[in-house]
């Protein structure tokens, strides 16, 4: 929406200012988190800063009343990896399946939408209730895994929709033409071409899981009761350790996403826009 010259219209400046203001608004508290993670040993979760230190970071690493933090970190990564792998396999398969209109596809689609949209705490309760009714003892792993999948799977599915819609079916027809069996076609053509999108799903699911679970385990330790989310919230520590954790998890996520983006970017550039939608 620009005028005949290359100049920016006035709306650019207004919206730009709004955007800038919003970024400030967004990052204000983030800065608070990052700064307060370096709070002095005698300070609390509010200003003023009582000196600076790495106390709270050290608190994370030192096994203390926060249970075994390094182990908890390891478990978070493990769970995130599992969630990511499952999400990729299940939602990629489902995304491919949805290319056709099949009986029941509408119902399944809206089920996925509802699952995405339903408040996660509710889902957590539901799963917990289910476990209790069935007389099973839920583990942190199983219940957290289950709850997270109800969120990451729809996310993966909808991402697949976007990815698949850009995928030119001529590639698959060409593969048929050249003698590929259905399996060969999948392995040698369909999946490699969809790979950047698939990596995106994997990373997205990983970071979603990691951020949520990390926070949970780090704050409550290895508990076995449900609903775990609620207990985590109630007993979340009100010390700058929480901020230190936040800074740490953000940094890890940042690095992961950064690396992924670079890899995907490179991949896309090599293959860029041959695609003429036939």
């Amino acid at each position, binding site marked *: 929406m620009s005028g005949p010259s290359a100049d920016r219209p006035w709306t650019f400046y207004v919206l730009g200012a*709004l955007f800038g203001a919003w970024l400030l608004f967004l990052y204000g508290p983030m800065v608070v*988190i990052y700064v307060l993670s370096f709070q002095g040993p005698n300070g609390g979760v509010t200003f003023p800063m009582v000196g600076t230190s790495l106390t709270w970071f050290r608190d994370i690493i030192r096994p203390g009343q926060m249970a075994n933090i390094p182990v908890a970190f390891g478990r978070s990564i493990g769970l995130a990896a599992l969630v990511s792998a499952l999400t990729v396999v299940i939602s990629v398969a489902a995304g491919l399946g949805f290319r056709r209109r099949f009986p029941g596809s509408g119902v*399944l689609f809206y089920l*996925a939408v509802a699952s995405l949209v339903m408040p996660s705490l509710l889902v957590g309760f539901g799963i917990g209730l289910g476990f209790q009714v069935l007389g099973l003892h839920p583990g942190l792993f199983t219940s957290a895994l289950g709850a997270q999948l109800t969120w990451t799977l729809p996310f993966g599915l909808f991402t697949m929709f976007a990815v698949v819609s850009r995928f030119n079916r001529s590639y698959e027809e060409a593969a048929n033409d050249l003698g590929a069996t259905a399996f060969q076609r999948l392995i040698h053509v369909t999946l490699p071409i969809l790979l950047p999108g698939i990596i995106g799903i994997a990373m997205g699911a990983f970071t979603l899981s990691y951020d949520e679970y990390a926070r949970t385990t780090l704050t409550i330790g290895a508990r076995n009761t449900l609903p775990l989310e609620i207990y985590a919230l109630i007993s979340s520590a009100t010390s700058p350790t929480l901020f230190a954790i936040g800074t740490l998890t*953000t940094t890890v996520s940042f690095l992961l996403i950064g690396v992924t983006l670079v890899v995907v970017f490179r991949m896309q550039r090599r293959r860029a826009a041959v695609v003429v939608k036939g």
Partner: protein
Amino acid sequence: MTFLTKPLPRLRAGEVEAQSAEGEDDRVGTQQGDGACRPDHPHPPLRGDFSRAQRGRGFQPWLVSWLQVGPLALILCVLFAAPTVLFLVVSFFDYDRVGIYPAFIMDNYRDLLTTPATLRVYISSLKFAVIVWAITLFLGFNIAWFLIFHIRNSITRTILFLLCAIPFWTSGIIRTIAWIPFLGRNGAFNQILLDLHITSKPLTFLLFSDFAVIITYVHLFTLLMVGPIANSLSKIDPALLEAARDAGASRFRTMVDVVIPLSKTGIVLGSILVFTQVMGDYFVVKTMSGGQSASIVSMLSTQIQAMEYPPASANAMVLVGFVAIMVAGMMFVVDVRKELVK
């Protein structure tokens, strides 16, 4: 020009001559009166050469699809649909201090909907949801517009999107708590106001109030609006905006008559996400309102802790019903499936 390592099969010499001798049979068929071509040779060899089994495409297409979506369907049913049904069933149960008893009574719902305290909580949640929805819609739409229509360089746009997304990677709980040092009486914001001599004493309404709750919600959930709306906007051909301009539409009219209808899907999806996140929230209200407001989910958690599963389930069902109505309403406004799969 050199090429094939072995020649392609050719006709034997005799056949070539035979072909040219039977000139009139080289016709493809007889030209009919209506100009179409119909065959005038006997029935062709049967299709036995390639039976259905040899085709290698034995499965019906819909069966293949079901195999592919099977795992997803299974997990969603077990982890989502089943618990919801469970809520539904248990919500009709009877209970007392000892345990729960299978029954079919409406008491739980009656209690839920007639208790003034409960209604107050629902109305309060709804109030927050509407206000937050309006603010995030305004902000989200304008931010998405800025990013999609005003940023031409796609690399810049990606970087700016990332900037918006980075805070999202930090847990919502931590971000909520971070507002406390910012908004408190001794907090950073008040310090800034005092230093700039805009106020003479700290503002107290900033924290532990409705204001704080709303600010936090906006902080957490605007991205949920920006994402889907930006996605919708990016699908709009910029030529449409220029065409509207050519036809004499003002910027405002272009926005209202062209862009908003075309970005319906994004707006609807974003709205649903924001609404449900606010209605389903527990922590923000608890922390930022200083106990002045309660949330639906906190009610739920109290009941669950007290092992009062039937009323908790009834509560949950009302919330589920609310979400279901929103999704159904969505289906009226826009065919989301067609849009998303496009």
